[in-house]
């Protein structure tokens, strides 16, 4: 689903975001990405969502070669990659419903289809009753769940999460992870950057360890429950 072939990202000024990373993530995998801050976790996610372009190697997502993708094609690629951020990135002047509806409106869906799918996504994250609320009135955990609903509402095959539990206590973090596992069960490929190692260990999934922009460990997890 996601394949890095010797991918590097060098920033102007000579700093390496990541260097010579080669790895393969299969469809339907749920993978954690760990490492110290500045190790290149975010850079990897940003390259997959084409927020940045790689400076070397070949990067493919869902059969699409991102290195050759034209600028005008980027929006259509992003529609197939849901992104979740530590700071949620919600629009404060729009209701929960309107925030979640954005990807569908951008994709040009009809009104009825939009409401149906938004309600389904909000129901999934347990916020159906708060659809008329504004993000500012929600708790941090709730805001993060709105962000997750927005990322999955258009049913993208790939979902990326950058420190999704960074600001949450362990109980809320566990809730979010349970949510991710339920998406994974319906076939969504997930790549989650986090440095909550306790959580990662508990879930027993494949874990990539980055250090100074290099992939230094790729633990193909033994599925605890398999």
């Amino acid at each position, binding site marked *: 689903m996601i394949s890095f072939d010797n991918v590097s990202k060098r920033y102007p000024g000579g700093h390496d975001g990541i260097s010579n990373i080669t790895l393969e993530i299969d469809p339907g995998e749920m993978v954690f990405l760990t490492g110290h801050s500045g190790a290149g976790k975010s850079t990897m996610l940003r390259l997959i*969502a084409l*927020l940045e372009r790689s400076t070397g190697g070949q990067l493919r997502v869902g059969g699409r070669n991102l290195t050759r993708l034209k600028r*005008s094609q980027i*929006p*259509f*690629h*992003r*529609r197939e990659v849901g*992104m979740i951020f530590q700071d949620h*990135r919600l*629009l404060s002047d729009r209701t929960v419903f309107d925030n979640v509806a*954005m*990807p569908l*409106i*951008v*994709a*040009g*869906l*009809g*009104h009825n289809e939009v409401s149906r799918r938004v309600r389904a996504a909000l129901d999934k994250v347990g916020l159906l009753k708060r659809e008329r609320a504004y993000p500012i009135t929600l708790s941090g955990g709730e805001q993060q769940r709105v962000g997750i609903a*927005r990322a999955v509402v*258009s049913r993208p095959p790939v979902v990326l999460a950058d420190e999704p539990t960074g600001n949450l206590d362990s109980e809320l973090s566990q809730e979010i992870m349970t949510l991710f596992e339920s998406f994974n069960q319906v076939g969504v490929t997930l790549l989650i950057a986090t440095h909550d190692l306790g959580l990662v260990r508990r879930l027993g999934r494949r874990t990539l360890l980055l250090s100074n922009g290099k992939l230094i460990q790729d633990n193909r997890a033994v599925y605890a429950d398999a």
Partner: protein
Amino acid sequence: MRESSPRKSSARVSSRRQINLKIWLTRHLQVALSSLGRVVRAPFSSLMTICVIGIALALPAGLHLMLDNVQVLSGSWDGAASISIYMEERVSDEQTAELAKRLQLESGISGASVVTRQQALREFRELSGFSEVLSTLEENPLPAVIVVKPDDALSDPQQAQALADKLTAMEGVDFAQLDLQWVTRFHAITEIADRFVWVVASLLGLAVILIIVNTIRLEIQNRHAEIEISKLIGATDSFIRRPFLYSGAWYGLFGGLISWLLVTLSLRLLDAPVARLAGLYQSDFILSGMDFSTFSLLIGCGSLLGLAGSWIAVGRHLHSIEPS
């Protein structure tokens, strides 16, 4: 069965196309209305922009209207232009009358009247006050004159001049003179004024574009977060551009309406003094207001300028916002 299936599928495709078109139109309508809502929801700052645009548009529109009115006036003077044909002395009154009759039938001439040498002398005597000097003359020094009225179709002074030249070349004619030479000059002046209005209109049109560029630029800055997130979730450039283009068009359209209001009010203020002046000249001339086509032109120009301005602003500033 075999025949019906492709037909069915093509019907399905066309109905899907119809649905897509419907969604597309609905979206445009929604974006247009939400842009309108944004303009209305910030009434003070919007009104400032709209009024500035209105004033900028009102000036050329008002000048254009004035010029139109002046041209209507000059049109009525054109009708008074006539050609005097001075006959050679050897031509008799009968021959002159004959020529006048023939001229009446010519195309481009609506009437020809004869002033015989006797009549001319009488008139001159009465009007000039030289009657005693004239009576000492043995011979009448004045030529016979045919006054020719050109057709209404011949309102162009150049054509009238050509007619005069043609008449000069006729047998028995000394020379033909186009009266009211100032009509030609007046036309030249209105042509300059016309050009001037265009120059003013272009400059102020440019000003309108700059105003809109600035307004939309501010709007883009205010909606920075929204643009960034839209790009993040896969909005195309045209999707992001659309609301700003509509905003620009709305500003231009409302600016056009304001300018129409300003021009109409100004005309109202001028109505009474103009009527008084016209009365002094025994004319029933009244200022004509803006007709519907000029009105639509004004509104259309406003909207187009708005669209152009927002297009420039969006083109310059949208690419600089990238999600991080």
